[in-house]
């Protein structure tokens, strides 16, 4: 066995340890982010999710001013915790639309009655089709879409108090 070759297995070990140490230091972020940030919202049209409120289409999200798109469901427990924060954002001037994923009209109505309704429009997505089209992988998620209909920011999981500054900042940037 030649001089250099016999050290190759050791080199392989060192490479392995190197990569694995990196992973131990930079833990795996299991969230799968949407790749559509910076790209236009894909075209869609959704029927109203419940009575008394308009449905949602992609054209509504290119209205000339930024909008927050909230992907939620009445059966989603963290969405309940998020509701007051969405109210707060609405009070501070953020326009919010929603997509209700896999939901019945009566359940959506009950959810809104119990936890408030900060949404101007709610589209019904019974087979998660639009959710998939957006690159969203769970509920709740929120997207900030600018006036031209370009997705500028994705927030995964419920909005918590600590997230509000970042969201407001992104909102301002999208104007």
């Amino acid at each position, binding site marked *: *066995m030649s*001089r250099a070759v*016999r*050290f190759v*297995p*050791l080199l392989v*070990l*060192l490479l*392995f*340890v190197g*990569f*694995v*140490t*990196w*992973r*131990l230091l930079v*833990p*795996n972020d*299991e969230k*799968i982010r949407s790749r559509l940030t910076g790209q236009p919202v894909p075209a869609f049209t959704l029927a109203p999710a419940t009575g008394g409120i308009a449905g949602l289409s992609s054209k509504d999200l290119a209205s000339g001013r930024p909008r927050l798109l909230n992907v939620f469901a009445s059966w989603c427990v963290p969405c309940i915790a998020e509701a007051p924060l969405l109210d707060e954002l609405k009070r501070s001037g953020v326009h919010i639309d929603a997509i209700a994923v896999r939901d019945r009209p009566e359940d959506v109505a009950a959810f809104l009655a119990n936890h408030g309704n900060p949404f101007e429009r709610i589209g019904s997505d019974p087979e998660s089709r639009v959710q998939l089209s957006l690159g969203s992988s769970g509920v709740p998620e929120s997207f900030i879409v600018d006036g031209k209909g370009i997705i500028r920011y994705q927030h995964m999981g419920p909005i918590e108090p600590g997230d509000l500054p970042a969201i407001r900042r992104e909102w301002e940037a999208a104007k």
Partner: protein
Amino acid sequence: MIAEAGLAALWLAAALAALQLALSLGAGGEQGRAIATVRAVAIGQGLLTAIAFAALILLFLRSDMSVLLVAENSHSQKPWLYKFAGAWGNHEGSMLLWVMVLALAGAVLALLERRLDERTLGASLGAQAALALGFFAFLLIASNPFERLSPAPIDGRGLNPLLQDPGLAFHPPTLYLGYVGLSVAFSIAVGGLIRRQVGPAIARAMRPWVLAAWIMLTLGITAGSYWAYYELGWGGWWFWDPVENASLMPWLAATALLHSVNVLAARGGLRAWTMMLALVAFSMSMVGTFLVRSGILTSVHAFAVDPTRGSFILALLTLYIGGALTLFALRIVDVKEGAQFDPVSREGGLVANNLLLSVILGIVFVGTLYPLIAEALSGEKLSVGPPYFNSVASPLALILAALMLIAPQLRWRRDAAPILPRLAPGMLVAIAALVASFILAPGIGLLPRLGLALGAGLLPASVQPLFGRSLRRTPLAVWGMALAHLGVAVAILGMASDSAFTRERLVAARPGDTVAVGPWLVEFRQVMPAAGANWTALEAELRASRGSGVTVLKPQSRFFPEPPTTTNEAAIDTSWNGQLYAVLGERDEQGRWQLRLWWKPFVTLIWLGGMLIALGGALALLGRLVRERRQRRNVEEAFA
């Protein structure tokens, strides 16, 4: 009390491991006396670890909730089998099992090894002690199974229902005997390299350990595959999941080592490769343990996710594998290779075999780690799964199968005689099967087609070495080889058949409907509630027939309260030419039940093949042990 006794036994065992290491490093006295002491210490270490393990089992059987591990993983209402097996259905308990096998393997090596000269044995036992010491430290410092919980809860959290299966009683212990059995091959290689004794004697000492560990790994992987097949409810038996790959890599190395060690023992060749494989095999076991417990790779089989513990194992790994590979690199220059041989020879075939197995091992290693590597280098996440492994590893496996048709018929050193007549049986059957497959099954894919052809050809080719010999005087080892190779043929036929001929039906059916799948007509009769020891379920009654006779299948959707989980219990009917596999899904709003039905022709050949391979190995092992006993007795009688 029992917990404290178990913990004390563990500490004592660790102390003995330290003592064993010190003694073999030469801290003992005169050489002859030292080896006897080292042997005794190793045996003591093994016994104490076994006592600690027995203590843990006792705690689980008695559902002692004052012990944290029992409270988190067991429940007083569980059937006793799952209390028992649940002891290793978690990280700490399975780590203790791992360490016990390590210590007991060292004890058996110390007790029974007579071939190696004493100084080499001393060095090997020292290496084994060094391994044990690190893992004892890990257990005692970072994974104590005997930790108390105060105040003790009334009852425990229960065992994950997916694990409440006889497979849990069998699969981990078998696998661990395999993984950790390879540690002795590792230690013997280290001892041999330290003492510059890398010849046939080392190979003969290593061989029974390699065989025994390999048999266990084969059985463990086969059992794991079958368990996943019937438990997960989708009819798949291998997914190239990181945890599955973690068990396959040591097996690939051990298979190559098995063949290599025979060449070294019989012909004195392949020294460097045999030593390297011996080091790589147990290294893969340690890497596997690390991957599975550290949580750095996502897996549906992951049973422990703890980066802190992962770092500890990584440190041990780096120390042990780094040390061993450095030793190899420094000492291998001194190793003189045996006589050269012609490419067309048994040795040549075995070298090709080693090469292909090592390449497949490399591919599985790289493929499993590639998502990690890519993310580290580019920040992008990607997935490497069955499409990659199947398209890359399967062709290589088929080349290996083709090699198996040829190489066992070759002579040692140099085969100048005409080869084609000897290859005829295998080749002709393979070609005939290939042609038949084109006529009878024109629509199947290329890889399954080649699998069917090569598998068929291997059937006669694997038993060919037995022909033309006096069967009574043929060594058991040759019987073992033939049976193991036959097992490979059978397994390949099963895999190809499953891939080519499986029929699937997914339907939404009402009671009274009939569904056709393959040659079967399945009548869906009704759904009834059912209950067991610690579960309730909805059970469907299906009546399946093809021609004559009716088989009843009762798949269940089962609910466990503790912890709350729903599982699918597939109903499987096994007949001579395949399995009918049925799963009950959910009910939709129109009152239809989701049914999943598969007809899988000859799928059982996969696991039957695995068992035949293990059986072949067992015969070979028996043959070697019997022969050595006879030789030793002959020598003793000659000098009596």
